[in-house]
């Protein structure tokens, strides 16, 4: 029997490079690809290095593929990325929400589009260098997503949208190792990427200045409006709601005499609602656009640990089913800055139960 083929997304970084080596060791026929999704136009951006999908990533990934002797292709995913990630990103901000583009990219680009391409090419699996584990749960017969052995590098938060079909065709070989072990393997097999820093930030906004990006890349106008308190009293003028996110304290541009935080963004009235520290806390949220992994659908009253943003700690909560496509999540203790547009992801120990987008 011929060996099983796997299409591996390669960024040129240490994780996906070592993933290639591990897959080869496991006997897979590995075809390396880099999804080219974004192209910076200005010179300044060209000079900067970071981002998982920049041109320097292509050079690095190609070098690694050559070293490992695997075929390597650059795939043009610019259109789909633009449609499903950037357009979504922009729309959400203008709706007064704070999107997570990495979740959208994983869902629509790295999984759906890449898997479609792999399947069309007669390739059985796709693989990435994510720190997460995929396995078949014999009890339920479902594919489950588990945190990697190192909690510190866990990347499951951005992967809760994967479907059963996608998970059944997904390999995440680095999930069984710690970051230190991965760097160690990289050194052993002589991959020069071992010292590259981890990629961070949003790949299509080099300077991390969302406001500038939105004003330069959107047809919609960013209109200044009023800061108000939770009772509706006007406190001052803001630069446009896209510049703010719930929980934000810095960069409001006005001194209020006491610490003030963004409590809510009211897109309809173009208002930014401010409050004191207490008012940023809440113990309830509703979520929609749900996806469940370890279970088929949520059970009313089920207990989970819920995480409300990538950097947040998990907190114990109860799920209330309200209608078919919506749930309420009630936390045992109030959570800081529950932000519409971000995702809430549910865990049961180290297993991803599922998640949804916060309303």
């Amino acid at each position, binding site marked *: 029997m011929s060996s099983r083929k796997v299409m591996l997304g390669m960024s040129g970084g240490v994780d996906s490079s070592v993933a290639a080596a591990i897959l080869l060791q496991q006997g897979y026929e590995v075809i390396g690809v880099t999804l*080219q999704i974004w*192209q910076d136009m200005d010179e300044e951006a060209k000079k900067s290095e970071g981002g998982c999908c920049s*041109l320097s990533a*292509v050079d690095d990934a190609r070098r690694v593929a050559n070293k490992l002797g695997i*075929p390597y*292709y*650059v*795939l*043009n995913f*610019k*259109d789909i990325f633009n449609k499903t990630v950037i357009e979504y990103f922009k729309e959400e901000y203008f709706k007064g929400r704070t999107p997570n583009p990495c979740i959208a990219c994983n869902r629509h680009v790295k999984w759906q589009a890449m898997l*479609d*391409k792999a*399947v*069309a*090419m*007669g390739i059985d699996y796709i693989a990435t260098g994510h720190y997460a584990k995929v396995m078949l749960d014999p009890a339920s017969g479902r594919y489950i997503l588990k945190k990697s052995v190192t909690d510190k590098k866990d990347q499951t938060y951005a992967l809760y949208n994967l479907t059963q079909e996608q998970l059944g065709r997904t390999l995440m070989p680095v999930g069984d190792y710690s970051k230190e072990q991965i760097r160690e393997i990289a050194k052993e097999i002589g991959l020069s990427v071992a010292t590259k820093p981890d990629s961070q930030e949003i790949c299509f906004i080099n300077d991390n200045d969302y406001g500038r990006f939105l004003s330069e890349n959107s047809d919609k106008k960013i209109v200044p409006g009023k800061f108000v308190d939770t009772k509706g009293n006007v406190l001052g003028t803001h630069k446009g709601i896209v510049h703010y996110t719930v929980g934000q304290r810095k960069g409001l541009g006005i001194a209020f005499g006491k610490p003030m935080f963004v409590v809510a963004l009211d897109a309809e009235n173009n208002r930014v609602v401010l409050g004191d520290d207490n008012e940023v806390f809440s113990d309830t949220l509703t979520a929609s656009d749900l996806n469940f992994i370890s279970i088929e659908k949520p059970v009313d009253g089920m207990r989970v640990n819920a995480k409300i943003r990538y950097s947040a700690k998990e907190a114990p909560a109860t799920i209330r089913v309200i209608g078919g496509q919506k749930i309420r999540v009630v936390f045992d203790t109030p959570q800081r800055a529950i932000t519409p547009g971000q995702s809430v992801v549910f865990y049961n120990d180290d297993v991803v139960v599922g998640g949804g987008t916060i309303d």
Partner: protein
Amino acid sequence: MGNRVIYLDHAATTYVKPEVFETMKPYFCEQFGNASSIYTLGRESKKAVEEAREKVARALGAQAREIYFTGSGSEADNWAIKGIASANKKKGNHIITSAIEHPAIMNSCKYLESEGFEVTYLPVDSDGVVSLEDLKKAVKDTTILISIMFANNEIGTIQPITEIGAFAREKGIYFHTDAVQAIGNVAIDVEKMNIDLLSLSSHKFYGPKGVGALYVRKGVKISSFIHGGAQERGKRASTENLPGIIGLGKAIELAVENMDAYNKKLMDLREQTIEGLMARIPYIRLNGHRTNRLPGNVNISFQYIEGESLLLMLDMIGVCGSSGSACSSGSLDPSHVLMAIGLPHEIAHGSLRLTFGEENTQEDVDFLLEEIPKIVSKLRDMSPLYEAIKNKK
């Protein structure tokens, strides 16, 4: 599947013919003298360079002193555009070119625009042909250069060079043509065609990479491109790339000698491929002029699939082709040439270019006609758009 490789990207580059390589060999280790040196070893080199220059001149119907060796076709293009602009800026600042030029011309023009020159990019019709009427309308008192490519690298369309040349001559405007794809495929006579400047590149006609040439008609005012020593009449300093130049000379000699037979063979493979694919696969279109095209060029758009997927799958069965959306080169946008002939974005993305060459055979064509329809139908089965079209019927 065997390990058979079918190379169908001769417009990208060709291998070096063994007989070309043989003529180059002595000039690496033995006959290495600097062509500018006075002693015998140097004089021998000089003699070989001048013989190569003669060969290039003969191939174009030019005189040897009108041929300048360069490091590449792109360099020749850059030199032609920038060198004419700089030497003639007192006469005017307007340049006319087409919307489907090679990036070497395109980006040289863009650069000149940033330096205050004015550039008109002539549109092309759906076959990729520049209209003489448009050209006539675009000319101004300030026009100093018309640069129109001889034959397009992507869609293969051959331009009405003789007519353009005659018009430019009548108006007293310099006429440059990027003939990188045309050499060895189309008969060229710079006298009859009224060409003032012409770029060519050795590795497109079975010569080595890293060497090209610019023909500059005697009397044309052009600035030096590389300032330094007296090589290439002081216009393009650099110690001569001796083996490269000698390889270019041999390659162009062979290309012109064998042109008729070569063209006939390529045209036969091309026609079989075009006809065969058109007959076997629905929803496809040929890009470029149906007949007035490079003998080895096939460029086809397949609706409802991406050229990229097609290329990858062809690569997996050993077929080397190219696409209008190749992005390893760093560009993610569909080809400017396919957009210029009016293809919608999504169809431009589903394009495949196959360019035949000397070593291709009937078996290659048979294999393509067998495999491409299978791959296309497999890819279309994945496409929701194609699904919708099928269901409608």
